[in-house]
């Protein structure tokens, strides 16, 4: 086995990018090790990180920091892509994004994708605070196309709201990340109203993002499966479905009409399915959701969806059809998920046969609206 230390991007910039288009990528990942966050962490939790730093680091699987509980089929030689799958500095990210033809990237964490699995709310909040300080200090200091998503610890919505208000004024803070893996309760719960109030007030969008782990809350009770094949599909896609249903139940999009809500890392094929199911059910059960003043699809059409991992039918025309089912040309945003194992190159999205205008929307304009970015033409 010979691991390749570089990105293997090899300068394979996207073919056929519309001229002058600045691609905005709403999901790239910075690698925050326990050691990196240590100096930014409040006491007494810094003492914990000092110990955790001494434990061997495994990829997205660190005891007390990113507990994944991976029980799936074991690896075989070359069963995972053998290239660098972490980005540890803004300079390295800039170089990688240049090779991908991406102008602006919105940074999400690596290990803190599993933040929702941590039970101790004080500790989870301390990690989120440390990450947010580290993000602002080490990644968002220059005008180099890096935008950040502030981590909102679900275990402590009041503290999450404080984090949003604390960092919202920073010119490169562009979103709020809602950790969706293992989150309990789901994001429709009234306790999160504080988070939505802060996000709406500061004009920052919220972005749901999951990852794979086993945990005894839906949809992470994945012990029913044997393989990462099943677990990975369920933990990303069904997490978005579960949280969208939960948010509709309590009328989040109706009660926070200016809040921009985005869903990440689940592709887009699920959107028309759940949208049509909700409309069907709502007609019979409208009284359960008195907050809504129109069909659920009306609200879904106001939400935003990131492309990655984009579905790949042999005939990419089918993706244009899927987009047309929920007004996706106005709400879908390109995401690469760089540098993760299932990142999408812009080439794949460029393969969808779309009008130039729709292509521009998906690669740039929809994200610009979602993030409320002013500087990109």
């Amino acid at each position, binding site marked *: *086995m010979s691991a*390749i230390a570089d990105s293997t991007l090899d300068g394979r910039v996207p073919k056929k990018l519309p001229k002058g288009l600045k691609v905005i990528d709403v999901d790239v990942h910075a690698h925050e090790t326990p050691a990196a966050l240590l100096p930014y962490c409040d006491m007494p939790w810094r003492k914990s990180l000092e110990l955790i730093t001494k434990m061997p680091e495994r990829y997205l699987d660190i005891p007390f920091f990113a507990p994944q509980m991976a029980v799936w089929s074991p690896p*075989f*030689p*070359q069963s995972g892509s053998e290239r660098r799958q972490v980005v540890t500095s803004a300079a390295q990210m800039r170089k990688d994004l240049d090779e991908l033809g991406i102008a602006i990237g919105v940074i999400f964490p690596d290990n803190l994708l599993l933040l929702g699995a941590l039970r101790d709310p004080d500790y989870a909040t301390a990690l989120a605070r440390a990450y947010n300080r580290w993000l602002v200090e080490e990644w968002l200091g220059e005008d180099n196309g890096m935008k950040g998503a502030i981590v909102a610890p679900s275990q402590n919505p009041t503290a999450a709201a404080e984090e949003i208000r604390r960092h919202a004024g920073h010119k490169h803070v562009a979103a709020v990340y809602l950790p969706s893996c293992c989150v309990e309760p789901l994001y429709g719960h009234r306790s999160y109203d504080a988070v939505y109030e802060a996000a709406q007030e500061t004009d920052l969008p919220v972005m749901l993002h999951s990852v794979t782990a086993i945990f005894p809350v839906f949809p992470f009770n994945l012990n029913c499966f044997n393989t990462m094949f099943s677990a990975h599909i369920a933990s990303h896609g069904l997490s978005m479905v579960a949280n969208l249903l939960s948010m509709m139940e309590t009328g989040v999009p109706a009660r926070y009409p200016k809040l921009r809500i985005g869903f990440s890392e689940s592709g887009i094929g699920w959107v028309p399915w759940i949208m049509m199911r909700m409309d069907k059910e709502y007609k019979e059960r409208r009284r359960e959701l008195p907050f809504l003043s129109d069909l659920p699809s009306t609200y879904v059409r106001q939400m935003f969806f990131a492309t990655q991992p984009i579905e790949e039918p042999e005939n990419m025309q089918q993706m244009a059809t899927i987009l047309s089912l929920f007004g996706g040309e106005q709400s879908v945003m390109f995401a690469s998920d760089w540098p993760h194992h*299932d990142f999408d190159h812009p*080439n794949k999205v460029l393969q969808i046969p779309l009008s130039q205008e729709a292509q521009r929307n998906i690669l740039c304009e929809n994200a610009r609206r979602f993030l409320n970015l002013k500087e990109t033409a």
Partner: protein
Amino acid sequence: MASEYLIGHTHELPPGTHKVVTAGGREIGIFNVAGRYYAIPNNCLHQNGPLCRGAVSGTIETSAEAGWKPVWAREGEIVVCPWHSMEFDITNGRCLAEPRRRIPTYAVTVVDSEIKISIP
């Protein structure tokens, strides 16, 4: 009409190794699989990743004949794309995940320890 390119000598490419060369303006991977030479493009049909920078290994297979027991098979015949781990059979260009699709293969000849590939 096919063009022939000298891309190296056999002592540079012992069994179990491969390298990427440029011939006729294309990046091509040359593989020595147990003494036989194969050439495929350095482009994955999935998202155009540099396929031949990937590692060579065997793979997991099974069948009714094997009683549906997974077996480790075809050691040295499979190249795995470094971008998304898609597997290709070096000997015929076939994509293991999408058996209806394959990448081109180029004819390789060895004369007096010179390795030459033929590109249409």
